[in-house]
């Protein structure tokens, strides 16, 4: 096969792939565009299904500056809780995973751990929330960040452990052994060998855990008050007894997604590098 023939073939395949991905992006983005456009409409304009409309900033004004809204604080709270709990989850599950999957525990220990964490993941949040509320009140940390951080850590640790399990299993044992023969200590081994190999898994896990924690509602509702409430709790306030304030809700969602979107766009080189780092083997 000549080089030019190969590239022509690739190009035709590429066009097809681009077409497919663009179609997928369109379907993915359409509701998002709808949400974004809604955030610039008045409620009545949205309900009338108006296609052309005069954009208004009323919704953003209400979300950010209304006296019954405290969105910036909610946003800060979310950043704090989500960042810390994601760090906790990824760190704890990394070490636990390393221990469980690379350090020769009897298989019943590993399986008990895995099945238990999956079973825990199945418990409806309503039942957990009230139990954690009692616990937090007893220890005196209810309405503190700490309560929600710990709850989110517990809630998402099982998922992280499962996600990392499949990545840990794929690290070739010879690499570790080689490093050990070279006289590397535990820390060096983790830092130089295991962590880089695990990078795609860790990055994917961290992204997912961050997103889960950012959007978690029932437990955040039970464990916070107006001082510590997170973004979903704030957004839920727009679903009221007599009306759903769609446009304000849309504005709040856009504001909540923008930073994450920017992070994804600018950080994507890092994410992609993270996701592909494992390809070295």
């Amino acid at each position, binding site marked *: 096969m000549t080089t030019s023939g190969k590239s022509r073939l690739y190009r035709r395949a590429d066009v097809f792939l681009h077409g497919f991905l663009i179609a997928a992006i369109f379907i993915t983005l359409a509701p998002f565009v709808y949400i974004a456009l809604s955030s610039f409409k008045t*409620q*009545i304009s949205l309900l009338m299904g108006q296609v052309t409309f005069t954009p208004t900033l009323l919704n953003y004004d209400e979300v950010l500056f209304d006296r019954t809204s405290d969105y910036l604080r909610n946003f800060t709270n979310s950043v704090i809780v989500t960042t810390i709990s994601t760090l906790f989850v990824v760190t704890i599950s990394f070490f636990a995973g390393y221990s469980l999957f690379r350090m020769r525990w009897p298989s019943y220990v590993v399986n008990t751990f895995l099945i238990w964490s999956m079973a825990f993941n199945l418990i409806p949040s309503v039942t957990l929330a009230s139990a954690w509320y009692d616990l937090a*009140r007893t220890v005196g940390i209810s309405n503190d960040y700490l309560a929600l951080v710990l709850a989110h850590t517990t809630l998402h640790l099982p998922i992280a452990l499962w996600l990392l399990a499949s990545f840990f299993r794929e690290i070739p044992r010879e690499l570790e052994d080689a490093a050990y023969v070279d006289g590397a200590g535990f820390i060096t081994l983790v830092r130089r060998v295991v962590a880089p190999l695990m990078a795609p898994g860790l990055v994917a896990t961290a992204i997912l855990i961050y997103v889960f924690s950012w959007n978690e509602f029932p437990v955040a509702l039970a464990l916070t008050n107006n001082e510590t409430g997170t973004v979903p709790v704030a957004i839920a306030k727009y*679903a009221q007894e007599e009306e759903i304030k769609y446009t304000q809700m849309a504005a709040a969602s856009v504001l909540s997604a923008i930073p994450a979107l920017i992070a994804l766009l600018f950080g994507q080189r890092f994410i992609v590098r993270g996701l592909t780092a494992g390809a070295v083997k």
Partner: protein
Amino acid sequence: MKTPEKNTIPSMAMIGKASIVAAMLASSATFAASHAPVNVVINQSPWLEGFAAIADLYEDETGNEITLDVNPYAGSLEKQRNAVRSEESEYDLLIINGIFYPEMYHGGFLEPLKSIDPEFDLDSRVYEYGGTPWFDSESRAIGKEDGQLLTVPVNPNITLLFYRKDLYEEKGWEAPTSFEQLESNARALHNPKKMYGIAQRAGRATVSVTWDFFPYIQGFGGSYFRDSDAGDYFVTINSEAAREALETYVRLASEVGPENPANLTQGDLIQLLVTGKLAHTVLPAAAWAQMDDPNKSAVVGKVGYATLPSAEGFPSTPALGHWLGGIPKNIPDEKKRAALAFLDWFQQPETQIQYAEMGGAPISAAAYESDIADRPENRYMKAMVTASPLAKGMWTIPEGAELAAITELGLNRAVAGEITVTEALNSMAADLESVLSEAGYATGRLPDLE
């Protein structure tokens, strides 16, 4: 502060109260905070802004501190339940929904207001909302005669008939008082896709279609239970009157309403109304605020309000969806006194009139009968004067949610046409009876409809 001399004929008790308030106001001018700070749990709502404003006014006038912990509507029950069930409640004043106050009453979570201050009583101008502020923990019945005062109403939400006043004026009609009139007017205005005659909720939720159907069953002379206020839970949902009511409800839904009425929620009703596609609907009074807001409505100034219709010889019966302020048992005494002081200040006629002026939702006849109600933008208040004293609650037992789950499903299926009206009523009656008898109530039910 405006003096309310022309609307109020204060009773002796009230004069006493008023002077206490006056004394409090006077003292606050010189001394700061005479009470501990009060932490109020409340949910986000269209009336929150008004309530926050009146709380600010209280702080300004008395120097006492009020903080509002504002929660999503969907979370208000959970937050309050968690608080009253813990060692010490983090909230000093609970703003309790008309749906879950029975749980608070029966569970014994609220401090009777007179045991905080024996002198305290509900102001005579405050609406009694079917006797729901009082509860007798022995007989487990609500009502003023035998009950202890547990709460003070804080929001007057009840159902009203919302109708297109402009179309009525064109036709030269008056607001309908009978179901017959309502139906014929709805038929006359029904013009599918452009304008629906009437829409009411039939969607399943916690308490949705059950609440909307309540004025119908009552208005035709029937009831869900024989006398639930007095604690008599003999099931009467399968009476002839109930059948007539449900047939009317289903007929209106299927013949002069939007297609597929079985998934309609309150949000949908409001959407249809504000976009000018609906001639009549039944909504909680609080929804009036959206009707005249040009950012939310295409029918500004065109919606009229009236109490619910009823059949000849039976009273109109709006359904209660009000909110009550209660003080939990598991807080220190000084907190209880502080919370009661705020409630007392709040219920006074002069506060209530100010509250109305600030765009709040008053609970006292003093406000509704004041000249504020004459302003065109406050026209809903006229309907409230008639409707408020007529309003009733559906049940007052903690099993309410279980009962509602049955009626929500049965009524929803009847409107959806999955089962006939008679089947729906008979099966609901059987299910209601079994839940009630399992929970230990003396119950029973009417013989099945044929």
